[in-house]
């Protein structure tokens, strides 16, 4: 982080008075803003499956998530910055996960923990399993493993922090009127999981079937 700090924030040719140099710390707004966000990133208390146990292990004594200022797990999505999708996403659960994601305030990040959340994992072929949460909500960091070791999850969290440090308050989409984030369309449990992106294609098939019935 040090190399991102400007050596001198003053206009060209000006020097800081000697007595101020020891008391005033100059940096950019982005750095302070991102430092604050990365060091107090509250994950949502949200366990899906086996990976949730390793997530708890990361919080516990040996791995100690508090070192990153992340120990406060929030049960309410309204207070959370980071969603750790820790486990298999089933079709029955998916509408709830999308709703939780939509309820999280910006800026928000998603970490797909483990093989199941990334792609469906060992259960991919199952009739009730979604092949990866990224089919429905945007994912920032994927952590492989089944389940990932706590060290792997910590590494993934550090990558989320890196991502935070690359953002700038000037270009952050959540402060821009023209880039308002639309909520992710809500999937529906029909005869099978209904993904709203399939609507047009399904309508065409339905109309063709109806026409065939009448004809």
């Amino acid at each position, binding site marked *: 982080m040090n190399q991102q700090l400007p050596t001198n924030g003053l206009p060209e040719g000006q020097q800081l008075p000697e007595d101020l140099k020891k008391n005033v710390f100059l940096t950019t707004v982005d750095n302070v803003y991102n430092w604050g966000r990365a060091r107090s990133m509250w994950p949502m208390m949200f366990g899906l499956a*086996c990976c949730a*146990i*390793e997530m708890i292990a990361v919080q516990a004594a040996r791995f100690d998530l508090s070192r990153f200022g992340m120990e406060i797990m929030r049960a309410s999505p309204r207070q959370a910055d980071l969603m750790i999708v820790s486990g298999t996403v089933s079709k029955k659960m998916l509408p*709830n996960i999308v709703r939780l994601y939509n309820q999280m305030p910006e800026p928000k990040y998603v970490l797909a923990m483990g093989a199941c959340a990334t792609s469906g994992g060992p259960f991919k072929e199952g009739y009730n399993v979604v092949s990866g949460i990224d089919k429905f909500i945007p994912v920032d960091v994927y952590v492989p493993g089944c389940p990932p070791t706590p060290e792997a999850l910590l590494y993934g969290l550090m990558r989320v922090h890196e991502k935070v440090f690359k953002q700038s308050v000037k270009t952050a989409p959540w402060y821009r009127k023209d880039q308002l984030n639309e909520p992710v369309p809500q999937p529906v449990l029909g005869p099978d999981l209904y993904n709203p992106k399939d609507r047009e294609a399904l309508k065409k098939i339905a109309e063709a079937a109806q026409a065939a019935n009448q004809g």
Partner: protein
Amino acid sequence: MTAETIATAQATAAASHPYNEVVPGAVLEATKTGLVVSPDRIVELARYLRDEQGYDYCSMVTSIDWPQYFEVVYYLYGAATPKDALVLRVRLTDKANPVMPSLTSVWRGADFQEREVYDLMGVRFEGHPNLRRILLWEGFEGHPLRKDYKEPYFEEESKPFKSRHPDGAHQWAEDRVPWKDNVSYPVGWDPDLWRSPEVQYRRIMGVDEATGNGDGLRTERILVNMGPQHPSTHGVFRMVIAVEGENVVGLEPEMGYLHRCHEKIGERNTYIMNIAFTDRLDYVSSMSNNLGYVLAVEKLMGLQVPERAEYIRVIMAELTRIISHLIAVGFLFNDLGAYFTPALYGMRERELILDLFEAAAGSRMMCNYMRFGGVMADLPAGWVERARNLVWNRLPKVMEDFENLLSGNEIFQSRTHGVGVLTAAEAINYSMSGPMLRASGVPYDVRRAEPYSIYDRFEFDVCSRPEGDVWARFRVRMDEIYQSLRILKQALDGLPEGPIMPPGKKQYQVRVPAGEAYARIEGPKGELGFFVVSDGKPNPYRYHVRAPTFINLTSLEKMTLGHKIADAVVILGAVDIVLGEVDR
């Protein structure tokens, strides 16, 4: 065993079966794998078996899809006085519309299991009080465990998939299917016209039953939804609770949010592939799951396990029990408001035991350690010393800490005594198992009642408490940790040298003769059963898991009624559910 061989199996003269003298025409055939019972007389026969013959415990209900008929299987035991298994089989030849009477009026423990059979196999149970889907959602099309059901990603009947061998030509599942995703819609289905069927919370919605406080005022009944994303439901579990004021007047558990199609995938896997999947059932105690599954397949194969492997298995299973109980106790306190401190102590000790697992199996959590006939690898050098240090020095001190800090706590005492009471008779009738059953004063432990592996060699007590409340469940779990330590000491002392697998070449493809086997073990959370039907092929024909916590949830409403809503959380915490196992 194919349907033909069952039908022509050596049967005793059914007419002369002793049960037929009491309930005429009930037993159609007595096969080696149980009594084939007429669906018309089964309720009568079941009542007789429960009241006169001592088969008071309906352990497992499952179903098999044979080419000619559906078969519903009931495994009965005696819990008050231990009895060997009696298997009732009902054959439903009308494959288009399979219907049979429900046995919930005889054994309440059949409630959720019959719903599961209805959900996944499509057998309807007449007279069931609440027959609707349990693991999948209302409106789902099809019954997945039927043999003619094909998933969207269906590739081949059985693994390993030939299309990928020998040249490993793999194609993404998404690229093969029409919707580029794991979905399939009925032809002509219009999403705009779709209305989800409304779930009738029949039993708990009835406002006419609202009683009020006895002062003539009618209290409004409110439905409170807890979960599936709730900090105190231990995962993705959902309860719908009807409350009048603070009092719970109705409760309905909703599950299936982690239904990972374990059984359908298991029927396509080869036998050895399933070991890794059993790890992910009850993900807190993977070693126990391994043990239960390999015991079932070994029963079919008739394998002899070498002495050293048996000892290693027992050591691993008991270490797993300690992890599971420590976490159960820690998170029970979480639910009571001791926010995370006791759980953190439990997790700390868990890490030490997981280090041992990692050293032996190579993985912390999903150990995948047991194999048919033995274990995967021998213990590394120094392992036994580390385990001895843990068992003799570390864990007894930790238990002392737990007792000092937790057991005597005044808030804990007042919140748990008399909360969620189940009497012994109720616990048996609801098919409770494990610490739940023993806390209701039934000293029933599979390790004692039907010893498996080498448990008959060890000295240990079956922990039991008469109270039947949350306190008793906590106490039983704590006492069982002491007993596990006792077994561990004997096993570590007696651990012999020798091979860890039976002689012969290591096999990836085991040959399992046709037949049917049910193995049950005393898992940390209760009676964990694996039901395997083989037809001689490399894949099981039917594979079913008797998940203890799934069945223990049957009594959740019974335990919670009349208590405050805050106690519902504590009662659920004392059941100690793990959703991977509840939903499978």
